[in-house]
């Protein structure tokens, strides 16, 4: 079994790095938290990490550059300017990129998503202010698209995860949205507790995203961005109903409660994919 190296970006206000790193390790990856500046100038600060040494690159959640001037905007500008080429190579090598929340926002501003026709440098879709106009923390029901090429959600049909954002409304021109659906690039949609579409309505769709879009991937399925936080469901006690679930299990005489959280499956898929293809 070969070693899968994952890199979680840190610095400049990013903040979900510890739990994302932890989730990747649970999923079997050799994961490191690496500061953006260490990638930009290897060796200048001691360590000299190289993007080429990694298989999975994660743009995690947070408030990069305080989210001023649009969430993920300044981060995208910084990375495009300093790491454009290495990231391009990373993609050509068939490796995986995951963007969560602020990371998703950075990916669409970099143009890595949706990446129509392998054009990884144009901003075609956007994540803009929630219709409510405010930051919201709530757990949502997600419906995954089984036909999507996304390697991260292979074999997954639905999942509950928390969203925590002020700018999560997915927006794009009508023809681009159509194209996303036509190519099954819409990976995750907000739904109600029974898996029916949220129809843009609060609370099931927390931000007013067009077509309830919560996450998309590029045509290769190897670049995936989503607003909800899989790394925040790394343990069964993360789920809002865990005390209720545990209580009903015990009533049915089931003493063994699963340790891992559902969210880890997303990272397991990524690790599996690398193991099989490298």
């Amino acid at each position: 079994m070969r070693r899968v190296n994952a890199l979680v970006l840190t610095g400049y206000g990013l903040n979900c790095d510890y739990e994302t790193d932890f989730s990747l390790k649970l999923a079997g990856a050799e994961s490191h938290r690496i500061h953006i500046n260490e990638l930009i100038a290897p060796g200048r600060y001691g360590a000299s990490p190289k993007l080429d040494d990694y298989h999975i690159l994660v743009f995690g959640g947070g408030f990069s550059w305080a989210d001023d001037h649009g969430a993920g905007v300044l981060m995208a500008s910084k990375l495009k300017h300093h790491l454009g080429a290495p990231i391009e190579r990373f993609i050509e090598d068939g490796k995986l990129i995951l963007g969560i929340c602020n990371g998703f926002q950075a990916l669409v501003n970099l143009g890595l998503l949706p990446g129509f026709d392998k054009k990884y440098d144009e901003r075609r879709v956007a994540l803009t202010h929630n219709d409510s106009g405010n930051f919201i923390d709530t757990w949502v029901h997600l419906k995954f698209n089984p036909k999507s090429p996304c390697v991260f959600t292979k074999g997954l049909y639905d999942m509950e995860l928390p969203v925590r954002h002020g700018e999560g409304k997915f927006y794009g021109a009508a023809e681009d949205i159509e194209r996303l659906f036509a190519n099954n690039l819409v990976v995750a949609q907000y739904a109600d507790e029974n898996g029916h579409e949220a129809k843009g309505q609060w609370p099931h769709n927390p931000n007013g995203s067009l077509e309830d879009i919560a996450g998309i991937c590029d045509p290769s399925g190897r670049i995936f961005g989503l607003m909800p936080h899989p790394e925040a469901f790394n343990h069964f006690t993360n789920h809002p109903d865990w005390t209720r679930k545990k209580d009903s299990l015990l009533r049915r005489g089931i003493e063994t409660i699963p340790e891992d959280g559902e969210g880890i499956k997303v990272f397991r898929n990524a690790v599996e994919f690398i193991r099989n293809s490298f």
Partner: protein
Amino acid sequence: MASRLEIRLKKEITDAEGAGLRRKAREYLGLEVKDIRVIRVLTIDADLHTDQLEQIRTNIFTNPVTEESSYTPLPEDFDRLIWIGFRPGVRDTAGSTAAEAIQDFLGITFTADQAVYTSKLYEIRGNLTERQVHKIASELLANELIQQWKIYSRDEWRPQQGIGILVPRVLLDHEPRVSTISIESDQELRRISLERNLALQDRDIPIIRQYFLREDVKADRKRAGLDLPTDVELEYISQARSDHCNHNTFRGLFRYHDLATGHREIVDNLFKSCIEAPTLKIKEEKDWVISVLWDNAGVGRFDDNYYYVITGETHNSPSNMEAYGGAITGIVGIYRDPLGTGKGAKLILGMYGYCVGPRDYRGELMPHLHPRRLLDGVIEGVRDGGNKSGIPTPFGLLLFDEGFMGKCLVFVTALGIMPAEIRGEQSHEKTTSPGDLIIMSGGRVGKDGIHGVTAASETYGEHTPAGHVQIGDPYTQKKMHDFLLEVRDEGLISFITDNGGGGLSSSIGESARFSNGCRVELDKVPLKYQGLDQWEIWVSESQERMTIALKPEHANRFMELSAKHSVESTIIGEYNDTGYLQLQYNNKTCAYVRMDLLRSDFPQWEFDAEWTPPEIRGLTEPVIDGPGNHNLLLKAILSRPNICGRNWVARQYDHEVQGGSVIKPLVGKKRDIPSDAAVVRPILGSKSGIAVTQALNPFYSQIDTYQMTAATIDEAVRKALAVGGDPDHLGGVDNFCWPTIEYHPTKNPDGKYKAAQLVRANWALRDYCLAYGIPLLSGKDSMYVDGNLKGPYGERRKVSGLPTLLFTVCSAIKDVSMCVTMDAKSPGDLVYILGDTNNELGGSEFYQMMGSVGINVPKVDAKGFWPHYLALARNIQEGLVSSCHAVSRGGLAVHLALVAMAGELGMQIHLPLVPGASELSVTQTLYSESCGRFIITVTPEKKERFEKGFSGMKIGKVGIVTESPRFSIMDRGDVAVIEEDVQALKEAWKRPFGELI
């Protein structure tokens, strides 16, 4: 030449900010606005070529999918236009991140005076008068303390020039100067102190003079090139002696006199006798107490490998002036305390507590900010401060009372975690040694927070900084936080502390006590703008700064990592053992003060404290005959602002970040009922967790602050135990907020009574911390909770807040999977009430609703309660409890309803089975606020084992959880007292604030 970039959302895209503003204009001001759209403005005060400007416009600042932008004015077809920008010197984070991005993208470096400033334009469409638009600008958008604004009507608008180019650059045409101060006589020094806002305390002045007149001191000063004391020195001494830094009130001498019994007693130093002594005693008994009473925060053991760190404070006055700025500065500020505790702790959790005037206040008094606007601002400040720091905010309190219109209370509490050992050294230990370098990391220094309060009344010029009101910058601090944890783990830190009140003067002044001396070069301190006097650099309270002591051999690596995290760090001096604090500016000494001066015995503050017991004050029980309609009454109480759902606050706060959320602020089937406490798992992969909760009960202070304090401690303890907290590990944090206690015949005629209230509160703090074994890991006092509010006739009325204690309890939990929530889980479960209900409605919600106070305030029988608490904890650990909830404000009726509402299930309760009910009327049983009580639900299979755990204790099986969602409470002979649909109760509970987002 400066340029102005204007950016707006494309027409077809919803402008959520504009829509929100429209909503507020309608709800708050009753103004119908057709449409509001926002234009972001970047004023780039730097010489860039046209092509450079175009590059940054398209590549950085304009999202082609959603936005359009131009260097020429965008506003069009509006009826009125509001421009709002910051005053000079107000923190403009977006401006500095824009400058950072521009320089990075273009590969250029701005000169010192080049910068980017952000402002906003609001296109208002609709039929509004100038005055109405002015109302929107001044009452919804801008606060004149930090912002300036202009309103344009359509006809006066010049599309070519637009708003023009407005550059709020700070220009201080001032040459830094040290001035000396005459110490001719005490009177002279007192006069100068007043004149210069030195705020020297009268009783300190003779001591200070004697010091500077000492021959040996004079000789030493001569050698250092000094004669008369300098303004730098007196500012330093004044800071160090301030109530804020020194807690003179709590260390004061109180002449306590009970006017009823005639009993007199001298109470010397509340801090030593009621906080320090009990805490040290408990520390001896509990080995999990690691470090208390000296550092920025207290330290307790989390598990074998980690320590947790906790502290709390208030940020009242600044929030009262500028709600958003004050609150964000408060939360970001408290986060520096754990970071500055021991060798530095990682922040893992924040909590909030707000006490404000009624949100719908329509009275005749005119506070600087209407309570509703103040609350909005405070909530948003803590939201941005917490969320942008990447720290979960899973618990908080909100309380409304007109008394807090004089000054609001904004409590902020923070927890951190650190490895027990760092490179073989205990993480909670730190010291400075001769030869260590003094480093300042983080933000730069401006006129911020200097003589804060007095500055508020100064008038502004176009370029004078509005420094006294700050806006915390979580982005700068988050970078510094990540940086400092990395240098900590490399073992580079000898000592670390934060720069808060008093700035460098207190962080360096206090850390230099360990080495017994220091030399600081004030000219090395990086400034936001030139022109600060030496004393201003020394006492400025500019935020996001830490002071670190470092061995010289670690300097290079430290600076390397500082650069990696793009954090500014500067060597500004060194610690030594000269016994002197020496400040220099361009190699000239401007302060030379013996380290032992501040340890010399300054006179203790003294207070007369006169206690009048409630019965002598004429308090009695009200005469209220049993209500005929208990359904209506319960729904009415559930809809009261201090009982009803305030969920919109919690939802704005990220309580999941860091991935360790175990028990969330809102629980239950629909996740909409407040939890007793929050539980987090700070070390992922470990089963251990921390439970934290808070309580405040200021209304009981109307009767007796002793009982208020006891009830508040007891409530916090019960809430922590309700989720599975460990009774052997209860850490406390006390945050007192009190009206002024110095007696003054005209300005504060009831000062002696308020002083007695403070003494009694501290006695209860001592008694109940000892009784429950709670060490006070940290705490702060904030006095002067008064305000003089303008009335309709131009008069000013003094409004004092109720004496308030916010008490925080934290508990380390070995296995979080044994935690329980308060929601009823399953039909058929048995409902128990643990603890007696007594005739204790004094200060209760029910009496308040009936317009009275009463006198039977709840009392805490710690000895009687404690065995119950131990038994409950055992039962929870054995998995015998399905749900557990501490009964608090509102009494049994309210809290039984909450348990049912949380489970979305019905309940059948038989009142006569409630322990203590036989002595009480129905209303008393339903609404008494007796302490020591829990509501517990248990599955029938576990009945025997559960009851065995409580044998011989005051517990009653009062009913069952039902499938049918009916909430019914029955009296003797199964007479229904309350018979209501659970959803109806929930609607009543949600109605008041249900619409808020």
